[in-house]
């Protein structure tokens, strides 16, 4: 046993690779001539940093469960890596998908983006990334075929987060929608502050979106808390820290620097926040529309 451990320590014997659990997808053995190269790699919440040191936090900010990575090769053709991220819920698969929204929308799974040799899509609890080493004429065809084959192997569709229903549709910039839980994600998409004044955590749900209002592009942030008291505490903390005002009612709206308006409104367990609106009316309208829609949304 001791000799075995020494060999592992010296790197002469690799410890056994983790195996995909029974809930993980079964990936194709080959696609249009591309075949599996090397053993699959499987990573958990505890080991994801072994796969992407310095990047695992983005997935851990969602309820990530397991990652399966497989490489496909064909002679004289770009290598392809397939990554399947199994999340605890379809909402979180959708959320991870919205982390980076740059790309061309394509029809794979429940939502997909293609960009120069990279296909990303989500379906049910799975977020899938298929990336080719280089983009060649046939790469897009291969990635789309592989993506559709993988998507077909996911038997059912998943629900999108119900909070999305609260987004007003008028003026919505669809590519600007991000769904997440924590300040790690918020601060990537819209750095608000360094102290998490909204008390975002794994138990909160948030949606950030941008709107076209005349020449302005305000942001709408919707946060749902587990309890009404949590929402109130966050509203007061945020108002004091960001707006320099202690709210007495359920709404605050202020003109800030450079003539931009920001504010918020509490609707039971939900906070509606608007930033960088060009006018008081524009900010108020966005909050009012969101407030009217959130009333019909149940968790």
């Amino acid at each position: 046993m001791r000799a075995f451990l020494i060999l592992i320590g010296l790197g002469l014997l690799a410890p056994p690779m983790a195996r995909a659990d029974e809930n993980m997808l079964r990936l194709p053995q080959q696609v249009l001539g591309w075949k599996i190269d090397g053993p699959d790699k499987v990573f958990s919440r505890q080991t994801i940093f072994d796969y992407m040191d310095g990047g695992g936090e983005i997935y851990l900010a969602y309820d990530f469960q397991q990652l399966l990575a497989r490489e496909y090769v064909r002679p004289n053709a770009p290598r392809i890596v397939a990554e399947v991220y199994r999340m605890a819920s379809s909402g979180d698969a959708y959320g991870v998908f919205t982390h980076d929204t740059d790309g061309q929308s394509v029809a794979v799974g429940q939502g997909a983006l293609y960009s120069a040799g990279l296909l990303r899509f989500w379906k049910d609890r799975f977020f899938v990334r298929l990336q080719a080493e280089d983009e060649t004429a046939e790469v897009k065809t291969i990635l789309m075929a592989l993506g559709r084959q993988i998507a077909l192997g996911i038997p059912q569709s998943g629900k999108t987060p119900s909070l999305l229903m609260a987004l007003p549709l008028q003026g919505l910039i669809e590519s600007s929608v991000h769904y997440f839980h924590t300040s790690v994600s918020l601060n990537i998409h819209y750095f608000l502050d360094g102290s998490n004044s909204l008390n975002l955590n794994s138990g909160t749900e948030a949606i950030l979106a941008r709107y076209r209002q005349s020449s302005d592009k305000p942001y709408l942030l919707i946060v749902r808390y587990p309890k009404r008291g949590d929402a109130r505490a966050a509203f007061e903390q945020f108002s004091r820290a960001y707006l320099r005002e202690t709210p007495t009612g359920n709404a605050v709206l202020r003109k800030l620097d450079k003539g931009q308006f920001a504010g918020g409104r509490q609707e039971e367990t939900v906070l509606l926040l608007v930033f960088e609106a060009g006018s008081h009316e524009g900010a108020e309208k966005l909050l009012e529309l969101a407030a009217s829609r959130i009333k019909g949304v149940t968790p």
Partner: protein
Amino acid sequence: MSPHDKFDRVTRRNFLRGAAYGSLGLAMGIEGLARAGQDSAFAAEKPLAEVVLVRNEAAVDAGHLVNSAVVAEMLDTAMKSFTGESEIAKAWQRYFRPQDNVGIKYTRCSWHRIHVNQAVLDAITDRLIAGGVARSRVTANDFGLPVKDCTALLNVPTVKVHALTGIAVSIKNYINFAGNRSSYHFDGSSKLGETWLLPEVKGKTRLIVVDMLRPYFGPGPQINPLHQWDYRAILVGTDPVAIDTVCLSICQKKRNLFKGEEWLITPPPRSLAAADSVYHLGTSDPTKIKLTRLGWAKEQLI
């Protein structure tokens, strides 16, 4: 109060108060960075730090393949300019002696992430050897560099906008020298500068050579090819904060060009601010940096 606490007080409102390009600096509480848009930025007459930027259009072809010979030429041009030496060997001998054990700390990720190109590493290694350092005394690695045994370090990072750190260049490149790496990603990575002051690291960095051939400006964590561009540059310097400040400025401009509006690098690069104001590793004030620009000038962005 921790010196890092001031970064916690930064809010979006600080950004909004700043001019478009200087807002990062104002937000971080570093007046210097906020001066990045001034005429005197990167043109210091009495500089605290000098950085040389060399670009060559032929360094990366249309298929994104790196031309080793061109990269080697760029490195030579940069080193001659930075040192003022006309001979390459003498330029390298300014920083590395035959008796040194040189550790080249580069950034190496799997192919679908951002890593230092082999052409850059080969050119550096060849020139160290030509400068008199025996091959057996040169060790290049990302993980597992025997830093305790190294008498001199050569920092060779790539450039990427980073979802947790803001920007990852030379300061972040030493994160692997720390035991608990992921802990440095808390608090906006403001403590990354600590890694430069570890006993086995402190004072050993002689030179920084940045592979900015194909930098990354997207939200990561993995590559979206839309967010990687062929900037085709090599940078040389000795001040990690100044070098990272130059790279930050270039990436910020690239992001703005990509979106057609200001697309701030977020979260704010606290590690850069703290490396200056807390760990005193160098200057982030563009008005105290002299940047020498050589070669291909198209879309230089700085």
